């Protein structure tokens, strides 16, 4: 394994997520696909983890298992619970997953409404995250009135407002143009710095992984395994545009690129 084993790192919090021997096989007719096999991972409390890897390496499957959307075929996931009232995880999905039939405000308040949080508290929380996500003026807008970038802000705000212990992000910015992407990465960092949640973030972009994370996990092709675990030590708060001028950035970028390249299947 390349890179430092981060679970031994003194600066990180206690172990939040332990994944041991996790496997997931999809069967459809006679065809079976093994998305994950004997997958192990430790994630510490408050860590921002990015996962990069070729398509079909099971990274989305991993996230969907953590989100409670898939059941594993084997192995186990243990998650250390904090105080009992907070939801375990909230996911920011790949495509636009914002409900078109709810106003922006009600999308952001979705998790709170499901849990029956009292009205005043709910409204204050929603207003707070609308403000943080740069959506203050759009609370009463319908999603169809928003651009793709604005919709993803809603999706991010919805996940943060739900105040989960773990935030799961499945290529949330992949479909956005470069400029919007950088703005949203910066805003995600700002939002995250206020809450310091444990984040698992999937991306195809090495840039994005380096800008956001404390650790980058490079996965190999199907079935997915962790090929390398790379610590990203840039000081926080980070500024996306400055970071890219850093010499260390280029070096890490190149290292990850080589790992992906030698794993054979890129894209």
């Amino acid at each position, binding site marked *: 394994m390349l890179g430092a084993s981060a679970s031994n790192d003194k600066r990180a919090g206690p172990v939040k997520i332990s994944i041991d021997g996790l496997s997931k096989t999809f069967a459809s007719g006679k065809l079976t696909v093994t998305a994950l096999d004997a997958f192990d991972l430790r994630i510490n409390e408050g860590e921002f983890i990015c996962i990069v890897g070729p398509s079909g390496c099971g990274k989305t499957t991993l996230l969907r298992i953590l989100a409670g959307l898939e059941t594993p075929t084997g192995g186990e996931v243990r998650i250390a619970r904090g105080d009992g009232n907070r939801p375990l995880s909230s996911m920011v999905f790949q495509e636009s*997953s914002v409900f078109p039939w709810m106003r922006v405000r009600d999308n952001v308040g979705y998790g709170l409404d*499901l849990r029956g949080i009292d009205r005043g508290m709910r409204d204050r929380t929603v207003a707070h995250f609308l403000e943080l996500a740069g959506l203050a003026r759009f609370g009463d807008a*319908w999603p169809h009135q*928003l651009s793709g970038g604005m919709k993803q802000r809603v999706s991010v705000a919805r996940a943060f407002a739900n105040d989960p212990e773990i935030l799961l992000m499945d290529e949330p910015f992949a479909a956005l143009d470069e400029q919007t992407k950088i703005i949203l990465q910066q805003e995600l960092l700002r939002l995250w710095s206020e809450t310091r949640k444990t984040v698992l973030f999937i991306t195809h972009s090495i840039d994005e992984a380096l800008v956001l994370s404390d650790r980058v996990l490079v996965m190999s092709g199907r079935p997915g395994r962790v090929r390398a675990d790379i610590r990203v030590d840039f000081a926080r708060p980070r500024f996306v545009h400055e970071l890219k001028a850093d010499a260390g950035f280029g070096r890490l970028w190149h290292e990850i690129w080589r790992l992906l390249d030698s794993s054979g299947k890129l894209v």
Partner: protein
Amino acid sequence: MSNEVRISAQAAKGPSLFRRLTASHGFMAVASPIVLLLLWEVAAQARLLDPRFFPAPSSVLGELVTLTLSGELPINLGWTVQRVLIGFVCGAVPAILLGLVMGLSPLLNALLRPTIAAIYPIPKIALFPLIMLIFGLGETSKWVIVGIAVFFQVFFSTLAGVVNIEHIYLDVATNFGASRWQAYRTVALPAALPFIFTGCQLGLGMALIVVVVAEQFGTKLGLGFMIWRSWQIFEVRDMFVALIVVALLGYGSQLAMLALERRLVQWKPKSGSQEVKT
């Protein structure tokens, strides 16, 4: 400067009145039936049409006023409206509930769909004799037959709406911890609502067709009864009056349904709306 192409604002002189009127779709939509009625009137007055079958619009209008003032028309209209409304609710409510549940449950879908699909192609009015055997000649059999006609339209539309929900929305509901009931309320129902409204519009149209036929039997009230009676006593003007009112009823109910949809489905993008940039 012979090779110059100019694109400039429209000349200040406006188009002629005629061109402005023909360009207005609203005006044309109103004007064409009026012209048709005028032609009909002229043809009837000139005896080009047989007044036994096609009485002049003016005489039909006179009959409409008479029947309205005598109270006969409002009473018949009231009965038909009542039958349609009760039958509609009896059909649409179970159709929406069943459509939602079956849409999200593959098991129930596999269990019930073949039966429902097998009954669907039967012309609903062909079931009316059976319905009358079971429920008698009274009001119940009319509600039931209207309900059955409405049910199928609304059910299949609702089912299509739920089955076509993008799966990611249901994933969001699951991930955010929605209970089954919450998933229906916050995702399945609102996502299927435009389809449900389409089904209700089709269902209302079907309800009118069925009720007019059903009112031939076991009642002396209703627009359908008016039509059948005027056939028996050869009073064609009454028949036209009833036909006009049925048509207006159909048109009005569609407008009402559209207005309700516009209130409840505000989130659907209207064509030409603007999006806000990041």
